[in-house]
């Protein structure tokens, strides 16, 4: 097992794991945005820059995807590494000035404001980290969204920027979005769930008892095909909303004749 020396602290980790893994083990925080353990690291946000000691020079590397193959020495809190991370964060703040999540992360890094004006905005408050795209493709297996355009024009979108038929309305993209840009909207009247800003909608399953919209019908079908639970029992379980399930269970108990000693 190679040893990673981070800011003087030594940790041993499995070969092939990343500098970020080593930092986590050492209890050293490195800010990240486009990193998520569920998907492959693209290292697109460039926020997790740290310095790698190359002997006669030091190289800035991204901690989230730099594979540890031998003993290495890295610096997280060196002046250059911190300056690089701050610089990247300032660029991101200029792009997504309204994101509270981003501002909170910046604050934790000690970046209070950006020196840059807002000059790019192809998609409101999106920092183009790509986690939504990766999770949809690699975890959900749908690839309903992808990147469109190039450079400053790059956006995340469903094909032709139309509502996508491949979207099952699972909301995984919204769950992983680190800046709160992707939102789930419920349209109760139409019994539909919408993933904003992609416009994709999915029909929802209603609670059989109270009629409350619960979850996307396609999600439950997908889940059925993946989860190894007795199918019948599982279907039964998904029929009602949690509230009605409690009520029904209580009623069932109440209807059972009380056994007397």
């Amino acid at each position, binding site marked *: 097992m190679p040893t990673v020396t981070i800011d003087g602290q030594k940790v041993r980790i499995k070969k092939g794991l990343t500098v970020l893994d080593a930092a986590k083990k050492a209890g050293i925080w490195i800010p990240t945005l486009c990193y998520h353990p569920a998907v492959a690291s*693209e*290292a*697109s*946000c*460039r*926020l997790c*820059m740290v310095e790698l000691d190359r002997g006669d020079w030091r190289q*800035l*590397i*991204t901690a989230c*995807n*730099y*594979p540890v193959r031998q003993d290495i020495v890295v610096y997280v809190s060196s002046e*250059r590494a911190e300056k*690089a991370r701050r*610089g*990247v964060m300032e*660029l*991101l703040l*200029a*792009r997504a000035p309204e994101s509270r999540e981003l501002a909170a992360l910046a604050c934790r890094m000690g970046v209070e404001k950006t*020196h*840059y*004006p807002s*000059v*790019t905005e192809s998609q409101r408050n999106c*920092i*183009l980290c*790509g986690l939504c795209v990766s999770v949809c493709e690699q975890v959900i297996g749908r690839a309903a969204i992808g*990147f469109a*355009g*190039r*450079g*400053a*024009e*790059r956006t995340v979108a469903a094909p032709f920027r139309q509502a996508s038929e491949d979207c099952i309305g699972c909301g995984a993209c919204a769950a992983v979005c680190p800046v709160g840009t992707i939102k789930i909207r419920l349209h109760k009247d139409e019994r539909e769930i919408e993933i904003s800003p992609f416009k994709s909608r999915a029909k929802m399953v209603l609670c059989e008892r109270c009629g409350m919209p619960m979850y996307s019908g396609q999600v439950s079908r997908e889940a059925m095909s993946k989860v190894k639970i007795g199918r019948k029992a599982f279907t039964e379980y998904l029929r009602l909303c949690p509230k009605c399930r409690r009520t029904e269970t209580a009623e069932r108990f109440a209807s059972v004749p009380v056994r007397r000693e």
Partner: protein
Amino acid sequence: MNTAAAKFAAPADIEAFSQAVRGKIRADSKVVRVCIGTGCAAKGSRKIYELFRQAAEQSMDDVKIEAKCVGCHGFCERGPIVVVEPGEILYQRVEEPDVAEIFRETVLGGRVIERLLYEDSATGTRASKAEEIPFYAVQKRIVLENNGRIDPARITDYIAQGGYSALAKVLSSMTPEDVIAEVEASGLRGRGGGGFPTARKWRSCREAKGKPKYVVCNGDEGDPGAFMDRSIMEGNPHSVIEGMLIGAYAIGSEQGYIYVRNEYPLAVEHLGTAISQAREMGLLGKNILGGTLSFDIEINRGGGAFVCGESTALMASLEGRAGVPRAKYIHTVESGLRNKPTNLNNVETWANIPAIINRGGRWFADIGTKNSKGTKVFSLVGNVRNTGLVEVPMGITLRRIIDEIGGGVRDGKRFKAVQTGGPSGGCIPAEHLDTRVDFDELTKLGSMMGSGGMIVMDEDTCMVRVAKYFTEFLQKESCGKCTPCREGLAQMLHILGRITDGEGQVGDIVRLEELADLLEGTALCALGKTAANPVLSTIRYFRDEYDAHIRDRHCPAKECRGLFRYEIDEEACKACGICLKACPVDAITGEKKVPHVIDQDKCTLCGTCWEKCPFTAVMKV
């Protein structure tokens, strides 16, 4: 050996075939070579070729006359180029009406037509052969040696000139290790921009675990003003294929790809023809020349993204995905195309290989400087008299390239800077013109070798605008994946735009330098890491121009609209009234015999008066 429809079964067959083809050429045969490279073709050389072909067909049988299409001669400024053998008489700026005269006088009569020869503007002497023209005399042609001599669509022509003899040599007498050692001895470094030692790359790929292994040719040349690789692919496609075959043998690969821009239709066509001819003759496919090497090549056409010249983006594109780079902490020689060991070299690198094998690594290493061996092809463009494609030994000075080969700055203007290395390169000022051109020297100056673009700029060029132009190009071509490149370039462009609009702020230079530092350190791929070079190098050498824009709201080169005024020179003004009538906002007053005056409050700086004045009395100040 039969010279038609041969299929080679052994390495020795190639030499036999080459001799047979050459043996068929009669001593009295005459050849008219017409350049159909893109530059000459744009000036109508295809039609000229057609006329020569018809003339040759109709001529008497007692002399054998052949009209031949050949690739780029490099002297694009003077195209269309026609060369007549014997005598190697080079005619320039040939037009359709000249064909009959050339055919009658030179081809049949053996007489030289003076007016079509190159004339040295300084001495007035005319040159009948290429080597007598300074443009060619200073060059040393290895890669481009056969460009302009062979018909790129005929494999027999290539073989007759010694083509595929390097492959035969490799397959008959060298082990893969020998090949790598020979390339190592040559000191060849990658010609695509990075300058990585080719042999070291080959060896890493050979030693990498995993099968299959791929060899890839990077023909996604996209630098503004660059056409080196284009001309090689168009004019001598077999040299690239032969290089790749030798590389495949050395590395242990059975499949190759040529990634070529779809905007290069002639290159795609000629490569396609070359590959199918090589297959027919048994030079691609299974058990090549009866040995153990099996190798084939597929062409992949790029979709027009500059970033696809970056190795990982190119491989993503080859895989059918969007051309977006990825981190290279694990090198592509270990895990590249389809996560298999992949060796990517540039067109010019591959085209150098046959010569290195044939003449030996040491011969190649004798050319050039300590750490940069051989020659380099540059496309010399911009405000220079002789634009074109030039191949020079490493270590030649920039001054010799620009003054001797390029004939100096055109229109009698003063030289200001030369931009090398493409959009990621830098601008080199006059005081460094005696720098020797090699990988390390250019890097020291804040520029780079790059793939070989060389843009000469005269005194009328605003260096801030130049920086802005390249930044804009890179910002448009950035894939947008990583934050610093996407956002940082947009911020830089914003600042540069403000400076050229006369709204620069104190501190803008520092801001640009900070962004440049951030980009260099944190961008994902080489495009972003080097994107600030044009800005940094212009700040380094032309800081006074930035200062003039920001502090004095003045553009010293008088290119930035709004940062200079138009005035009429009283002495030069003939009071003709042309500017007065042309001015769209009636800002010019004056009458007959009274010099005209521009009302600066009314003037919108459109420049119409400056363009229209027949006496150059309107000045930019």
